[in-house]
């Protein structure tokens, strides 16, 4: 399949004395959708944040399309622009309207003209079904709308891959569906996606692979049918039982 989109090699991360990632190895191929599941505190967010170097790994390597982002000499900003990231708390820029939210990084990072950036913004906003919200400020949007704008903002950079960190966890239950639908559309269009989620339905139906993380290591990695229906590890079974009971 050529060079993987993301390749993680023996990644370790300490916060002080606490070893949060204890040797992670895995790859995401171009066009693949990988869901990461696992209990709270298992290091899922930390892993995503090490992939685009919001967090510095203690040791190990992360290769983005073959380029080592953990290498101090690498152009982090250019590599980050290839990786769209969507956060649990949306993190839209509250002092800018939706149009500016979508154009500012196109202008400052990609050097696009105002017209070109606005045109891309309009296209991406249409993709998430929010064309009519272009002049609104984030505070006037619902959580689901804000999260869709955040996805559109990331897409405006024409990323080669997208990472999602529990992007529906902060939403009211009735707003979860619209965001998952946008993500499903993206997956159908062939976007490479690394998704941390508690939405087992999404993992089952959309993911090519599901990864179960526990205490900083990958316990299991395989097709959703296998991991979700027939896990080999007792820890995975326990986790799935808990998730089902709590009705995530």
């Amino acid at each position: 399949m050529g060079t993987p989109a993301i390749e993680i090699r023996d990644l370790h991360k300490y916060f002080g004395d606490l070893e949060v990632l204890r040797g992670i190895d895995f790859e995401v191929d171009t066009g693949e959708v990988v869901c990461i599941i696992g209990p709270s505190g298992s290091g899922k967010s930390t892993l995503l944040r090490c992939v685009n170097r919001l967090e510095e790994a203690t040791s190990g390597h992360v290769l983005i399309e073959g380029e080592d982002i953990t290498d101090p000499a690498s152009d982090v900003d250019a590599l980050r622009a290839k990786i769209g990231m969507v956060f649990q708390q949306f993190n839209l820029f509250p002092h800018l309207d939706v149009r500016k939210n979508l154009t500012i990084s196109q202008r400052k990072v990609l050097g696009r003209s105002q017209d070109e950036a606005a045109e891309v913004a309009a296209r991406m906003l249409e993709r998430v079904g929010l064309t009519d919200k272009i002049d609104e400020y984030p505070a006037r949007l619902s959580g689901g709308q804000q999260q869709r704008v955040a996805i559109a903002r990331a897409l405006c950079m024409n990323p080669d891959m997208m990472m999602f960190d529990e992007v529906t966890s902060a939403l009211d239950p009735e707003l979860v569906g619209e965001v998952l639908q946008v993500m499903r559309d993206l997956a159908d269009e062939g976007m490479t996606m690394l998704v941390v989620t508690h939405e087992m339905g999404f993992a089952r139906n959309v993911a090519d692979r599901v990864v179960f993380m526990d205490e900083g290591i990958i316990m299991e990695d395989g097709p959703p049918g296998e991991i979700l229906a027939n896990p080999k590890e007792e820890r995975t079974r326990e986790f799935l039982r808990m998730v089902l009971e709590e009705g995530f």
Partner: protein
Amino acid sequence: MVTKTARPIWKHPRFVPGIMYGLLVLIALLLVFFADWDKIQSNFLKPEIFRDMFPEVLTIAAKNTLIYTAVAFAAGFVLALVLALMKLSPIGPYRWFATSYIELFRGLPALVTIILVAFGLPIAFGWRIPFGTAGKAAVGLGLVAAAYMAETIRAGIQAVPRGQMEAARSLGMSAPTAMAYIVLPQAFRIIIPPLTNELVLLIKDTSLLFVVGTTPASKELTKFGRDFMTTTINATPLTVIALVYLMITLPMTSLVRQLEKRAAKGR
């Protein structure tokens, strides 16, 4: 029918405020009664001195006060922004420098700083600050104001959620770009009320420039008033400059209140 139990008067909800108002009226009456109105009139409110002070009290003194405030604020703000960013820098020596600077200039009386800048610098380095009193205001008061504003700006930057910087960085923005376009605009919104407060304090601190602004054209309000007092041997100039100060500061403090109200509502 509900029988009303008799309530002792001191339990009445209006009792305490009532007493306070009563005291206030009493004090006001005593002041009016015991004040020597003739003396007050002849010492603080002499019409001919009032007349003599105009228009210079406005066209020179008040104008100078405003100019000195503006240049000191501008210089102080730029320096404060640099200090705030240094204080938040991952590089240790920058942080130490900013911290020492802030401690030093907050620890010194502003007057001492002004004297050091105006008279110490030329002796020590043979360098005279250009642009007369305005230049000394910018450097002397600016150095002091920067120390106070730096802490305000730092607090504003830290009040912007971390996720803002992270979202900007994950879109590929460099740290300076993200700071300039995403974090600082939000930080400034947060700190407009406290910064306006600093501005009001600075207006009053320009009175310390009496040690350097001594020529007729460079006097600010306080120096102008004091000199007028000396020549007239009367306190009326004090009343005049007090009124002029209030004319400048009262609108500003009410602006601060409005900004704070708006800040509390928004977000």
